[in-house]
């Protein structure tokens, strides 16, 4: 029975820089890393950590000058988390994207989920994906309708470590 | 009724000659209609229609069979209205029942911008003598009680442009009627003959065609091949702004008559009507990509079904019987390209996108006149190829199709 919760205020920081600089940019502790494009990476962290992530990344990319930008996108995307057995069954009902193989490290992938452009992470036992805040209501409805058939439960956002990437 | 029992010869095969006064490339509705009017109106019968497949294999056999004249521009309105006039008496003239079904046509407006457009169309139509008017929800309900007028949907219907003369008819009957009419007046119909080149003399004037059965001399060559226009124009060295997009449609299994109007929604990009055979015919907008691949897609089936169900939710459990695809030769302004091409004696009847079937009759009449008199008839002058370079477009997107 998979669980569903949302993490509206997960920290989301987008870093833009030339590809080599992005390659070299370390993932802040406790954050998930999503390479969106050769010149863009997103770090998704626990709520409240955006400022720290921004500071770290800005400092790392300072040498790039105007060729780098670090942007707080926390308010722009909503994070949905499907946790537990059967998460894949829910996913199969909301997206045609083939899931990457599950492992301890998060695999990042992009595609249409819930009918909207999404950025997602797959790990053993859970699938997290982000969609635009403006369509979150719709995506929530899609999830609940799809999850109904496979016994999904909506649960409150966990108080601690909802992103679950802390080491 | 006597015609019922005699075996009728629709057309017979003949041998290809070496020369004709007029060669028409394309044995669809437009090509056969042009041949017919050449013979009937001008007594020009030394004409060959060259069709690489079978008669009506292209758009003529695949469209959603709607004829109407409620267009947006005066040029468009006059042109399509002339076609409607011709269609009204066509069954009698060609002695074939085209099963013209004058159901009445709704262009549904679901947004305030669409209401604006339909109002403008209605008034322009009436100014030019076409029966067409904007009606509100109550009148829509009276005329078409099957339509979903609930406010509890994503895009509630706000108004409709009502065009009572809007009709559907049996598309194959149109091309067969023109083909047999032309044949019995002495025109030759050649199926399985593919044009492979346009022949020119040293001055660049068109003098005939190359085919898979040898070269043919011609006084005048008309290209009426719709979706294959860019290929034929390549052969002639003529440039057009045409792009080819697939268009799909499907029919359901037949059921007892339920819908007695023709529904079109520009907001939902869908056409819905019910044929005399009882099948629901659902059409949509062109695919956004350009290709000659006519493979059916499921995304089309899905989206057009969803849109059709918004309008007529009772169709939910009807079975889709068959879907098909055709080509649309699209122009930037959604109006056709007719007449001179810059290559002397080579004329174009093209740019028919999703709006060609209803023009079959007027197209035949005017292209015949073009070929016979070598002067561009007034009715088609606005559709000249040179209008793009002159930036004198005839914008009909809102009225010609349900595209975004």
């Amino acid at each position, binding site marked *: 029975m998979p669980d569903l919760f949302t993490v509206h205020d997960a920290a989301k920081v987008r870093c833009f820089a030339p590809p080599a600089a992005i390659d070299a940019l370390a993932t802040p502790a406790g954050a998930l890393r999503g390479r969106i494009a050769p010149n863009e990476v997103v770090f998704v962290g626990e709520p409240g950590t955006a400022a720290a992530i921004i500071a770290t990344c800005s400092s790392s990319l300072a040498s790039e000058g105007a060729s780098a930008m670090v942007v707080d996108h926390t308010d722009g995307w909503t994070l949905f988390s499907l946790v537990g057995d059967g998460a894949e069954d829910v996913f199969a009902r909301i997206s045609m994207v083939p899931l990457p193989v599950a492992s301890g490290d998060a695999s990042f992938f992009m595609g249409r989920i819930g009918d909207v452009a999404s950025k997602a992470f797959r790990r053993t036992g859970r699938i997290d994906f982000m969609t635009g805040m403006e369509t979150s209501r719709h995506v929530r409805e899609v999830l609940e309708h799809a999850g109904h058939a496979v016994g999904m439960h909506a649960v409150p956002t966990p108080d601690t470590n909802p992103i679950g990437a802390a080491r | 009724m006597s015609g019922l029992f005699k075996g009728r010869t629709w057309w017979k095969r003949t041998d290809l000659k070496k020369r004709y006064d007029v060669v028409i490339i394309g044995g669809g509705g437009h090509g056969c209609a042009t041949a017919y009017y050449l013979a009937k109106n001008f007594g020009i019968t030394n004409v060959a229609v060259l069709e690489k497949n*079978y008669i009506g294999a292209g758009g003529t056999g695949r469209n959603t069979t709607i004829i109407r004249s409620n267009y947006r521009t005066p040029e468009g309105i006059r042109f399509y209205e002339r076609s409607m006039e011709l269609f009204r008496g066509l069954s*009698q003239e060609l002695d074939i029942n085209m099963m013209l079904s004058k159901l009445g046509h709704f262009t549904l407006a679901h947004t305030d911008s669409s209401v604006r457009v339909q109002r403008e169309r209605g*008034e322009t139509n009436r100014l030019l003598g076409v029966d067409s008017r904007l009606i509100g929800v109550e009148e829509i309900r009276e005329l078409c009680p099957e339509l979903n007028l609930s406010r509890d949907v994503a895009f509630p219907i706000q108004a409709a442009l009502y065009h009572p003369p809007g009709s559907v008819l049996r598309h194959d*009957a149109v091309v067969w009627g023109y083909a047999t009419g032309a044949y019995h007046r002495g025109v030759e119909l050649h199926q399985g003959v593919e044009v492979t080149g346009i022949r020119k003399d040293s001055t660049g004037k068109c003098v005939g065609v190359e085919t898979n059965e040898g070269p043919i001399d011609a006084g005048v060559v008309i290209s009426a091949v719709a979706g294959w226009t860019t290929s034929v124009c390549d052969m002639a060295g003529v440039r057009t702004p045409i792009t080819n997009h697939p268009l799909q449609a499907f029919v359901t299994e037949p059921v*007892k008559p339920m819908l007695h109007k023709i529904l079109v929604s520009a907001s939902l990009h869908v056409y819905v009507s019910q044929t*005399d*055979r009882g099948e629901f015919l659902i059409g949509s907008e062109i695919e956004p990509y350009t290709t000659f691949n006519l493979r*059916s897609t499921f995304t089309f089936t*899905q989206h057009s079904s969803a849109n059709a169900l918004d309008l007529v939710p009772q169709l939910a459990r009807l079975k889709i019987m068959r879907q098909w695809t055709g080509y649309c030769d699209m122009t930037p302004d959604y109006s056709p390209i007719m007449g001179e091409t810059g290559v002397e004696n080579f004329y174009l009847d093209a740019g028919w996108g999703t709006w060609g079937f209803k023009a079959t009759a007027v197209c035949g009449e005017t292209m015949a006149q073009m070929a016979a008199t070598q002067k561009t008839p007034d009715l088609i002058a606005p559709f000249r190829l040179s209008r793009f370079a002159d930036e004198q477009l005839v914008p009909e997107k809102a009225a010609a199709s349900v595209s975004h």
Partner: protein
Amino acid sequence: MTGIDFEGTQVPLQAGDTIAAALYRSGTRVFSRSFKYHRPRGLYCAAGDCPNCLVTVDGEVNVRACECAAKAGQKVSRQNAWPSADRDALSIIDKMHWALPVGFYYKAGIKPKFAWPMVEPFIRKMAGLGFVDHHDAPRHLVRVNHHPEVLVIGAGVAGLSAALAAAGAGKSVLVIDEKAPGHRVAVGETRAAIDRLVGEVTAHGAITTQWNTAATGIFEGPLVIAVDATREETLHVHPGAIVVAAGGREIHRVFRGNDLPGVMQARGAARLAGVHGLKLGERAVVWAEQPEALAHVETLQRAGVTVVAVVAPDGLDTSSVTVEVVRGEVTAANGKKRLASVVAGGRTIACDVLAIGSEIQGNEHLVRLSYDLPVVIAGDCTGRHHTLEEAAASGTSAGTAAAAGPALYAVEPVRPRTCGSDGYVCLCEDVSVKDIEVACKEGFDSAELLKRYTTVTMGPCQGRICADQLRAVAERVTPELAERVGAPTTLRPPTRPITLEQAVAGAAHHIERHTTLTSKHLSAGASMMWAGVWKRVEAYNGDVQGEYAAVRERVGVIDVGTLGKFLVGGKDATAFLERLYPMKIADLEAGRLRYGLLLEEGGVIIDDGTVCALGDGRYYITVTTSGAERLESWMLDWAEAWGHEVYVVNQTASLGAINVAGPQARAVLEKLTSDAVDRESFPYIRHRQITVAGVPCLAMRLGFVGELAYELHFPASQAERLWDAIIEAGKAFDIRPFGLMAQRLLRLEKGHIIVAQDTDFETTPWKVGMEWAVKLDKPDFVGKAALLRHQKRTDRELLVPWVMPAGTACPPEGTVITVNGALSGRVTSAWHSPTLGHPLGLAWVVNAHAKDGAAVNVGGTTATVRVGHAFYDPQGEKLRA
């Protein structure tokens, strides 16, 4: 209720019954009346291919009784007959056969002209096979995506063997079957083999199965769509490779009387007798053209019918059967509403069941859709009957090939067939051999033309029964055209029925986008309307006039969070924007902003908005609500084309935006911020970073609605807090939230255009009097070349402001404009201005009449064109306050 309600009578059920089986057992022999001639039809294929058993079940029309599981309480009725299928009054049409030859409808009703419109309503009423329930509404079915490495379609011996072979080669496999495996097969060797293989497949960890799941089409991808009616799911399968093992069926044999109830295909008869135990009649004849058919003799006998003869061709070894063998073929069937005898080998044999075990052909519909896709065919589906061993071998080889990555499938040419000289070729459309012969002679001399003229293959069977026979008859009549006539007609999906509802399952439809303030708006009584793909406030409690008045006289506040917003950076940001926009960007100092147009290459206006220079080479851009998504890729495409290092960050959703407008706007703001927002510190057309109610904002002074206004852009999560603070601070001034309707009126009084309402796909800045927005002295920008060309032309029409006298009714938008009865233009925006006291608006008008002072007719009232005069506050004093 333990049975089904069949036209008012209770019919008992046995376990495993289909509706057809239950009805047959209780004595039903006529299952439908044919579409055109209302001929009585009985069970024929019992496999879901022919139209003979289409019934209405619980309001759903055209259900195949032979495939539909019978359930207690179902309401079943036959179709297309009145008063009943047993005694159909319309069968008189069949007696009038001679008057209704093929294509008769094209040849009749032509003269007199009034005849057709009178006759047509009757023809329409007779069309169709069942009634649509007017209360039907779509349910929202689920779509499930699957990604097996190999998909096997068909769980017979070949299909199950293929699945095991593919899984054995290490692949993940999904097997689907349109029913339960073997459910059409009588108990015996084949059934046992299937059951054994199902056991192995179910036990295999790498194989998933889903039964009662019918594939309806194979598309590019590859993508296979399948419908599971029992779970109400539509499957979207995205396999690496596909094995089609969809089995075969007997060829439709055509002879006089071939459509009589009692004439069946042998596999269908064997299913009814062997699976459902039905005694099919008293005396049966089995026509065996190939060895498999002989095995059906015993199956029929075990269920109680006497097999009186086997008709077989000379070459067939019939030593396994003990009944009389008649050599030859069946050339006619006799009977009135039911089979009474057949003619074979020169004899007439009395019988009430004829089981035709003709040659097997593949169920090739999915196959013919598979061209150029990684598909392998296996078993009977390849086009001939397979023994058990052959089927297993075929499947194993196919599964192995699929696992290895098969070549793209090339459809083989269709094998030629023969057809009898009399009888019904097309059961769906009642087209006989004679009809096709006539059509050929009349000139319909190619397969497609024949199809369209005779309508063969266009009914519910979609050619399954009749397509080969159509070709065979045509080839016989016009052998010289064999290639053209005999060419297979185009095959199209769906290959099995799929309803609109099933096709729609899981499809995204009209997704609404909302700002984070929507619930606040709704609680305040807002009605929402579409603006592009967003829902925005139309008005609060319908009081557009009140909202308007608030903005003009006091202060109003509007949620403009739907505006497209982009942060643009990267080392080439300035050069990029300079080249993208028609106005100058490079000279914008930090803190300044510029309103501008976005043009495409033709010089046409595609959007408008503002550009704020943030300093340090970065910019903040706004565009209209409908523009953002499309413009993001448009901008990135240009950056790539020019080789610019540019980052375009779409902040449309991550930032909210609120506009506070009206003479008291500053007063409200000063209560919420300690930053300087006075005229000197913060002039018009500037932007500043200020903190309002504790929320950090980028504030802009713009003039869309013609009043002093501050537009605040801030992190979207702070929207409610900021909105509440503004409303609270504004109470002292009687602040009102306002929506789109009021906003449109306000901007119209300033003559501001709305892109796509006042402009169209050909609108250049020249046509709307916005030459000031274009700087032609820039070296290059998108649209420059086109604009230079346009400048040399006289525009056919121009967008101009107009006014009507006070006291006249405001014309609706879209009203056409005429001058002396001739078309001259159209109204794009119109409103009655409360402040100015008369109707005003914008319109497209032909050049000759687009002059200041020109009089034009708008829906019967005279309007005056006013070029060069703004309506409200012409000097813009209020904006600059």
